[in-house]
């Protein structure tokens, strides 16, 4: 049953409030994208939220970190505490699991959640998180943005929302991850400098990610949610990339076979 608070979202279904209250989600990375997601989860009524980040608020975050204040920067507030404050301010009864540190340090807690929002920087970080999510059969909704600058041309803002659903195509299948981008990233390691980040594209990507999560949990659109959306930040459009038509999305993922026991759970030693 929906309540007065959620009466305007009752079209999501009779049991949507229960579903939001029962589902356990984690938001990994509480920067520009993750802070938007956390805020929306609080508004919608998600009540079991794990939030993970190793950083404290800095002045350069204030252009995009939703919920952060100048005072937070002054006292060096942890991003997890800023996010927790935001959720609790919207929903005092929410059970917020504050996971300060890198997500790998909290893997045993994150393994228990039903859905992960991945808001990490970099290809290698996404590779590792997707591998973890697949091993534990957890849907992962990944978002990220970047700004590229070619000589003389206007900066090009891009981003993505990828739904990595166990059994479905992974980031490798979609060619978002490949050895070229991983090698390039590894070569630049330590020399990348601060990545451009602004608030509005993160808002678009985060809203799409939350919208997909709500649809996954309620099925209100009665459609299969998108697998891959690409943001053109200059024209402010979010759409499936044209190259998606080249891939057979019905083909089982060969990188993370869904029917292979050995690809799931904790590693075990088997004597043959």
């Amino acid at each position, binding site marked *: 049953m929906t309540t007065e608070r959620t009466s305007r979202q009752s079209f999501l279904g009779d049991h949507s409030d229960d579903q939001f209250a029962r589902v356990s989600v984690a938001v990994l990375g509480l920067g520009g994208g993750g802070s938007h997601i956390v805020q929306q989860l609080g508004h919608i009524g998600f009540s079991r939220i794990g939030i993970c980040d190793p950083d404290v608020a800095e002045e350069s975050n204030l252009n995009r970190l939703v919920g952060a204040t100048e005072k937070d920067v002054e006292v060096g507030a942890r991003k997890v505490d800023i996010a927790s404050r935001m959720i609790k301010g919207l929903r005092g009864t929410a059970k917020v699991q504050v996971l300060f540190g890198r997500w790998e340090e909290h893997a045993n807690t994150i393994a*228990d959640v039903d859905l992960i929002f991945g808001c990490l920087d970099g290809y290698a970080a996404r590779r590792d998180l997707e591998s973890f999510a697949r091993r534990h059969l957890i849907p992962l909704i990944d978002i990220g943005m970047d700004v590229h600058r070619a000589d003389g041309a206007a900066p090009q803002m891009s981003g993505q929302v990828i739904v990595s659903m166990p*059994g479905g195509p992974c980031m490798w299948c979609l060619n978002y991850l490949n050895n070229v981008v991983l090698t390039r990233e590894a070569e630049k390691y330590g020399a990348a400098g601060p990545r451009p980040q602004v608030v509005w594209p993160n808002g678009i990507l985060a809203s799409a990610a939350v919208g997909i999560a709500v649809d*996954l949990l309620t*099925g209100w659109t009665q459609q299969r949610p998108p697998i891959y959306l690409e943001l053109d930040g200059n024209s402010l459009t979010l759409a499936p990339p044209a190259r998606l038509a080249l891939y057979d999305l019905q083909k089982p993922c060969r990188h993370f076979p869904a*029917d292979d*026991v*050995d690809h*799931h759970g*904790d590693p*075990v030693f088997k004597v043959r």
Partner: protein
Amino acid sequence: MTVHVRLTSALYKDIRADLERPHEFAAERVGFAYGRQALTSSGVLVIVIAFDPVADSDYEDDPSVGARIGAPAINKALQRAASLGAAAFHVHAHLHAGPPRFSRTDLAQLPPVMEPFAHIVSNQTRGLLVFSDDDCTGLAWVPGERSSRRVSAVTVVGSPMQLIGVRR
């Protein structure tokens, strides 16, 4: 400590379809689900990956119970769990809406069926799952523990996601 079970919607659909098939004389169908466990900060997560129905010929005709399976069915399940190094669950269904309950017969007769799994794959969880039309109830034995624990949640991963048997 919690025991959380997770499986894909495709596998869940297969299991449900199989358990709803009529049998020549048994009133209920039975199968075994296999998976791997992961230790979590709150307990154990069992990721179910495969399901084998009990063969028609491995049922014994006993009108006093919903279904009785013979030693060959259990031996096959034990062998499969051993080959996979897997956690294993005895699975059946009570075809009604709402939370299902294990019958007195279930609780008396099914735990001994799963007991040998503790010796064959000692490092994995074993248990019982009973599905209804829209819910699930489960019991699980975690390695190193003598008594069973109630399964606290079953997550069906797909589109839409289903959270059934949630007793959080």
